[in-house]
């Protein structure tokens, strides 16, 4: 065993530790776009969390002395047709968007992940039945499916979240299944089976973590999609109800009548939606690269 001892000592030299500071620096240097996306995400989340602290006016109080005012120092983003401050409404709208977006995206992709992995892992009849159900759900355009669910469940934040989540699930399940089919055949899954691990452990600890890349991509695109879907439902009048501030709702009232005379009523909510979707997508791409241990050291 003397040879082994020398070999073990040689390995000591290459096993230097990495600190968290160097990891953060690496991230900014290697993923500048992702870091920018992360900044937008942090901005959106803090706007949602601290909206009571950073707003300038009450977003739900009308001020008929200041209707449709252009952006100024008094009203940074101008005011809408009821004289409500658009900046304050956007800040408060972030809360609605983040709540609905995060809940729907996380629920949708996680349920989809579990369904997809289960379907691929067990195969056979389980797979066939799950996939046909997924087919049926995918056949509906998602906004139509969401509309139907809202009509059945009624209005409000809860039903809107359910309505946005359900159309997301089959998309994620489909993508995840195809990745899981490949992972299932990799020898470490056989090794886990040979070790006598149960199905639950294999699904949760061996297959699921190894399809994190498609899962995270789905999750972050879903965040964007869910924020958009929430805005669309509000725009169609089936989402969050007035006077609660929501970006889609603001876009709707602004776009219908004042797109030309008071463009700020449309532009700022629109920018908020696009920025949120864009930021989450950039951040998601970077997150995937960072979380994949194989890509980390390149």
């Amino acid at each position, binding site marked *: 065993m003397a040879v082994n001892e020398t070999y073990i000592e040689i390995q000591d030299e290459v096993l230097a530790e990495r600190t968290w500071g160097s990891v953060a620096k690496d991230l900014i240097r290697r993923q500048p776009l992702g870091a920018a996306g992360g900044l937008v995400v942090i901005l959106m989340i803090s706007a949602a969390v601290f909206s009571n602290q950073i707003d300038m006016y009450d977003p739900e109080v009308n001020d008929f002395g200041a209707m449709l005012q252009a952006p100024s120092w008094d009203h940074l983003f101008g005011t809408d047709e009821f004289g409500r401050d658009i900046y304050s409404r956007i800040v408060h709208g972030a809360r609605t968007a983040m709540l609905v977006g995060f809940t729907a995206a996380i629920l949708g992709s996680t349920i989809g992940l579990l369904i997809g992995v289960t379907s691929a892992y067990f195969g056979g009849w389980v797979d066939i039945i799950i996939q046909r159900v997924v087919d049926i759900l995918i056949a509906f355009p998602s906004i139509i499916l969401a509309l139907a669910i809202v009509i059945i469940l009624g209005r409000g934040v809860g039903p809107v979240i359910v309505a946005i989540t359900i159309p997301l699930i089959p998309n994620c399940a489909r993508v995840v299944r195809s990745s899981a089919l490949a992972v299932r055949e990799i020898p*470490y899954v056989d090794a886990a089976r040979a070790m006598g691990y149960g199905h639950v452990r294999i699904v949760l600890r061996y297959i699921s973590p190894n399809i994190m890349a498609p899962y995270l991509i789905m999750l972050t695109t879903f965040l964007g999609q869910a924020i958009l879907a929430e805005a669309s439902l509000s725009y169609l009048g089936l989402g969050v109800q007035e006077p609660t501030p929501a970006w889609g709702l603001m876009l709707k009232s602004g776009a219908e009548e004042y797109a030309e005379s008071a463009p700020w009523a449309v532009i700022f909510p629109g920018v908020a939606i696009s920025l949120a979707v864009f930021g989450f997508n950039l951040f998601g791409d970077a997150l995937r690269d960072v979380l994949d241990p194989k890509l980390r050291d390149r």
Partner: protein
Amino acid sequence: MSVAETMRDGNSLANADANAEPLLRVEGLKMHFPVTEGLFMRRTVGHVKAVDGVSFSVAPGETLGLVGESGCGKTTVGRCILRLENPTAGKVSFAGRDVAGMTMGEMTELRQDVQVIFQDPFSSLNPRMKIGTIIGEPLRVHGIIKDATERRERVAELLRLCGLNPRFADRYPHEMSGGQRQRVGIARALSVNPKFIVCDEAVSALDVSIQAQIINLLEDLQEQFNFSYLFIAHDLSVVRHLCHRVAVMYLGKIVELADCDELFDNPQHPYTQALLSAVPVPDPTTEETRSHQILEGEVPSPMAPPPGCVFHPRCTRATEACTRDIPELQEFTPGHTLACPIVLGK
């Protein structure tokens, strides 16, 4: 000299007792994979006969080599023993107990007794787990060591045993070289104190110098813990160095089984002879002058194996009877069996 020969000679049956009750017995093992067609109404159009009636036994402390061309069913035999596949027919018994009839609890026990080392060290470790978790998880799941600190110590011990620095426990597999990963695979297999290890081409994905290290490690461990190996390989020099007995497979059947030296020095089955003559001799003058026995044709499809002896279409000594009768493994000399009535003179 070949790699195997440059390493210390280890063909002595140091730990194995040839007369001992076999640890593993495989009888008439068959594994036929159905081939299906059709999008909605799946129907079976045929079977790939990956393994078609294989029988052998392995004694405690013995290494049985399983050799043959790609696609001859070696790996499937290993997977059936590990119960990663459910055999179509036949019996696998471990320490006298039939594996097929085992309850869930007995199966969990068996999982600890029979372990596996895979060919590809890059795909046999979960890339999302740290080395310490990979090796420590079986200890936790099977309740072998319940205390976390003790478990860490045991993992460190296993890593040292396999020639790795215990600090690798906090590393991920992608931070290691192929040889180091293969050592992790071995440490994982050892964690549950197995009695039998299936080495499925355990060294063929490694480069030559690393192969020698891993083979020596496998030998050292066998001496220390006295477990049995089923060594599946196609590198004959490695098999000769490591194994006590060798079985040669062709198209899902064992054609010859003998003690290692007997098989290499005195091969009897025409297929074994051809297989051994395909091994290059590392001496240019001998290599030029020695007679090569080159097989004609291709390995037939395991979906439609030839009738009679599966080897007859490529065999130089085949007679009309070979196309009809399926040969059985019969004793040639004590400990040396083969499936060829022509050679046996019957």
